[in-house]
């Protein structure tokens, strides 16, 4: 599904990804762990096409489609979703209006009909109930005045409604208390499917107790330096990143 080969990327003059290769097949959840500054967030921005993140070498394909040749919104329409580590506030645009506008923009690119307002509301209500969100909150401007945890929940709410094929979760556990973590994780797990895949970026093992990964990769100094099963996350939790940081 997602195939990254020898990806090099820089921000300004600084090279941050230095030959990153990774395969995430459909149906699987892969975790990326690594020390601060290893390039975890850079990877998520490079894949989603954030301006200022320049790919200098390598390739990134989603089901054979070259992501690097597409604009950020075109990648989204291909089914790529990033749950932001720090979701942005959008003053004046109610959350529901925003998600519906985004959904219909994506559907238009894919040649699918618009979702009508009543259909959308019905789906939004169901998603909000699953995530134990107050529906009135969705009528307020997106993320404005929300707590860190509410913003993360709102990311998963958007993800559920947009129903992407490939999801990147960037430090989704930060800012969540233990109950919220469970609810958000259930929301994420509900999106697991044979034709979808996920990349979970996290600094801590904690999230992976709730969202069980099929594979765990260690990212250090811009490269994948180790890969293994879920047990690798436990080892990292026990022993830290020191040995990988040195190896890199």
């Amino acid at each position, binding site marked *: 599904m997602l195939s990254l080969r020898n990806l090099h990327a820089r921000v300004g003059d600084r090279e941050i990804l230095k030959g990153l290769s990774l395969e995430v097949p459909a149906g699987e959840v892969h975790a990326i762990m690594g020390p601060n500054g290893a390039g975890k967030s850079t990877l998520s921005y490079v894949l989603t096409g954030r301006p200022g993140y320049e790919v200098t070498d390598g390739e990134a394909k989603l089901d054979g489609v070259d992501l690097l040749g597409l604009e950020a919104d075109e990648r989204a329409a291909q089914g790529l979703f990033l749950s932001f580590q720090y*979701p*942005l506030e*959008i003053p004046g645009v109610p959350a529901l209006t925003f998600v519906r506008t985004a*959904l219909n923009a994506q559907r238009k690119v894919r040649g699918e009909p618009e979702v009508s307002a009543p259909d959308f509301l019905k789906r939004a209500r169901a998603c909000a109930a699953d995530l134990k969100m107050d529906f009135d909150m969705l009528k307020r401007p997106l993320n404005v005045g929300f707590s860190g945890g509410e913003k993360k929940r709102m990311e998963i709410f958007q993800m559920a409604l947009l129903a992407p094929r490939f999801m990147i979760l960037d430090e989704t556990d930060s800012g969540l208390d233990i109950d919220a973590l469970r609810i958000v994780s259930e929301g994420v797990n509900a999106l697991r499917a044979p034709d979808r895949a996920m990349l979970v970026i996290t600094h801590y093992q904690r999230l992976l107790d709730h969202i069980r990964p099929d594979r765990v990769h260690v990212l250090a100094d811009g490269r994948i330096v180790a890969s293994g099963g879920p047990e690798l996350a436990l080892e990292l939790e026990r022993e830290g990143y020191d040995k990988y940081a040195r190896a890199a």
Partner: protein
Amino acid sequence: MNLGQAIRLRDATLLPSRRDEDWRWTDLRGLLRTIPEPSLALDPESIGPGPFDGVAGEVLVVANGAGPEAVEVEAGGDRTLVLRQVSRGDGAHACRLRIRVGAGARLTLLESHEGGGSGLSLLGVELDLGEGAACERLAVCDLDPDAVAVAELDVRLSPGARFAQTLLTTGSRRQRLETRVSHPGQGAEARLDGAYLLSGRRHADLTSSVRHEGPDGRTDQLARGIVDDQARAVFQGRIVVQEGADGTDARMAHNALILSDRAEVDARPELEIYADDVACAHGATVGALDDEVLFYMRQRGLPEREARILLAASFLGEVLDRVESPAASGRLRDWLAARLGAA
């Protein structure tokens, strides 16, 4: 300087110029070497549809400066007036209109400034509000790119009266909308809002001055605008609180977004306070659309253009949220949406 006299006497030396402090960013003397010939008569039947067509109310037309000179709303009355100022051609014209709103009466004034050709126009309105009277003025300006247009409104409030306005404009070669309010306090209120959306080489100037002459008056102002290309916006807001005007509550905010390196916003908020016990605040910001927010929106699938329009609509929409007339509010939103889509 006096624009009305300059037009009447066809004397360009009387035009306001950058030497006049209040006009330094909207220089007409430097723009026009001569005053154009007087405008030809314009048949009001020939002017086509206006932005408030279909909203209930009487329609008054000022066609190339010719139109009614006085309007009166009787005490206790409630009227909606559509006032269309339509200009065509390359001539110059000026006109004056007096509107009196009797004690306790209400007037909704739906104003449109249309056309303008490549001429010079001045619309001067005097608005007298009796005790406890209320007037909401909603104006949309769709001027031709070569028009030079000035509209001045002098408002005299009585105790307990309320004046509220929302001005929407896309500017012109040089456009100024000036509002002067004489404010007696004593429960009287003024709201002076505006929004501008400028592109190309257009210019719009929102100037206002409010003079609080008595105690316990309120003034509230929210102006917002977006400038692109080589456009230029001017915001001048002055609130004077005279000695003895205690208990005055005055708030002013002006926020602008600049979308291009070559666009310009000149802002001068001024509070002059000579009374002791007052609550006054002003805030002014000039910034760009936030790139991080734009990326976030695009990541969710919104094309850049749509993301920009959505942000701009919500930014300017907060001005429209304060409009009171339900009948006109939808028209103003449609007007804004159409202009944003075309930008």
